[in-house]
């Protein structure tokens, strides 16, 4: 399989504090890769380096075949991004948001029209396309934000805690969309702190204090730590790290 994300000893320091400490991993094309860790474990910093928002202090990495320290402008064209904060403009309508982001990625007008009609249909938002986004229920907004993030058909999409504050039913629908995108060959890189969501991923890595403490498929990880749920695995891992100190 083609490896679309590769990192080698990737490190980011802020002064004397090491936020990301020598992490190395890869993600394959079409994979759903879960990036887990407590708040402050270094997830967001690592992800920002992969998206070209932040330069690594040491180590190297590539995304979609481009070097993250040098070719970040090229990387930006090949990725989609959806952040934990809501990532659409609330005072624009549904279709204005779609057009705006499609326009930013330089898509041709005709294609924008065709595809936005498809997506509105798929999300059952066709008759609400002229509604301001702030009047749309949260679960729907999240699905719309994801559709916008993959609208320009990126190779990889980064999702930073995409399902925060969403009810279980909407979360399930959201994950259906993720699977569909992955089936279409889009690689999904997702951070989350819902441990049940971790089980939906093909492989997961768990970050503790800037390092990758574990990386495997969910079922292998549960076997290794002799745990029934991912939540238990996570608690054992974090406790283990503290005991070592």
């Amino acid at each position, binding site marked *: 399989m083609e490896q679309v994300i590769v990192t080698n000893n990737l490190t980011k320091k802020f002064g004397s504090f090491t936020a990301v400490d020598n992490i190395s991993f890869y993600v394959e094309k079409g994979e759903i890769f879960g990036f887990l860790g407590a708040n402050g474990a270094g997830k967001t910093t690592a992800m920002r380096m992969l998206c070209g*928002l932040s*330069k690594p202090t040491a180590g190297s990495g590539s995304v979609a075949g481009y070097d993250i320290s040098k070719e970040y402008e090229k990387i930006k064209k090949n990725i989609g*991004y959806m952040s934990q904060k809501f990532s659409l*403009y609330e*005072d624009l309508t549904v279709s204005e948001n779609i057009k705006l982001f499609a*326009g*930013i990625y*330089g898509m041709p007008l005709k294609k924008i029209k065709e595809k936005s009609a498809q997506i509105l249909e798929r999300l059952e938002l066709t008759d609400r396309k002229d509604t301001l986004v702030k009047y749309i229920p949260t679960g729907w907004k999240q699905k719309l934000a994801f559709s916008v993030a993959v609208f320009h058909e990126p190779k990889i999409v980064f999702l930073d805690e995409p399902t925060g504050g969403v009810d279980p039913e909407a979360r399930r629908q959201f994950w259906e969309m993720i699977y569909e995108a992955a089936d279409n060959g889009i690689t999904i890189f997702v951070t989350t702190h819902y441990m049940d969501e971790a089980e939906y991923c093909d492989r997961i890595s768990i970050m503790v204090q800037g390092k990758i403490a574990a990386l495997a498929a969910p079922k292998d990880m549960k076997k290794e730590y002799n745990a029934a749920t991912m939540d238990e695995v996570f608690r054992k891992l974090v406790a283990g790290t503290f005991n070592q100190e």
Partner: protein
Amino acid sequence: MKQLLSFIKKEVLHIIRDKRTILILLIMPVVQIMLFGFAMTLEVKNIRVAVSYQYGDELAEKITARISASEYFDIVKTINNPINISSYFIKEKIDTVIVFSDGFSNEIYKGGTPAVQIINDASDPNQASTVTSYISAIISSFQNEIAGAASPVRINTELKMLYNPELKGSYNFVPGVMALVLTLICAMMTSISIVREKEFGTMELLLVSPMKPAYIIISKIVPYFIISTINLLTIIALAVMLLDMPVRGSFTLLMGVSFLFIFVSLTVGIFISSLVANQAAAMLIAGMGMMLPVMLLSGMLFPLDSMPKFLQVIADFVPASWYFTAVKKIMIEGQGFMNITKEIIILNIMLAVLVIASIKKFKVRLG
């Protein structure tokens, strides 16, 4: 280019959808012109005057009639006994009392030393000194007349107020309001709209997109540039039509200098946005940090020349004070390009420094 256009469209939509703000932005200059033009005037009018002279004093009566004829003064009381003057200030809300000495006319006819005392309510010092100089002028012109050719030496002072013969306050505050409104809209609104993206997290989204940072900034600037231009034209139109403000110099030059100042203020806004993390801080810095210096140190309300040296030095760093001077020179004195080169050069230097500083700040944040 298509990227840029779709982004400018978004900024315009943000502004149009926020109806309250756009209304304030468009109405603010009108309200300020009205306020400064009609309500908050520094000119002295309708001063309540009481006069005191000996009953039947011919010349004192004549002078009183002249004072009363002036539009500045209303003679509300004539008294014949200058005792307990202070009680008039309290009871009758008198602003000024003029007391002629006993036998005022006689003293003049026989070449003695007649005396006039002017007593002012100086709780408003500006008004008191203006009133004093007006009354003195009336009395001395009268004196010259009655002295006639008989007087051995006569020095006639003739006053001529250049550029603003009627001493209109509007000549000072209209350029001030222009500086104020442009600063507020350009610096404050631009910084708020950039910081809002940071606060809501949408800035991240834009930075991971292939959108060039320069495009993000340009599209933030364009709508406010348009609004500022509309405001500028509104202010000038109102000032000319309602307040008889002249535009003696070249209109093109006036617009040129104004556009330069708009660019300086927009860059100030961008610079502020790179310093702060939330909208409240941006508003505070742009609002207080920009508005107060513009009002106090541009020369709009208080003349810079009479300020302490260190305040004058600070004022030199306020872009609005240079713009203010340039606008006055163009609109009121009718000066041409050659006479405002200093202001133009300084504003250009400020623009260059701010642009470099903002670019540096932006890069640091990305690293």
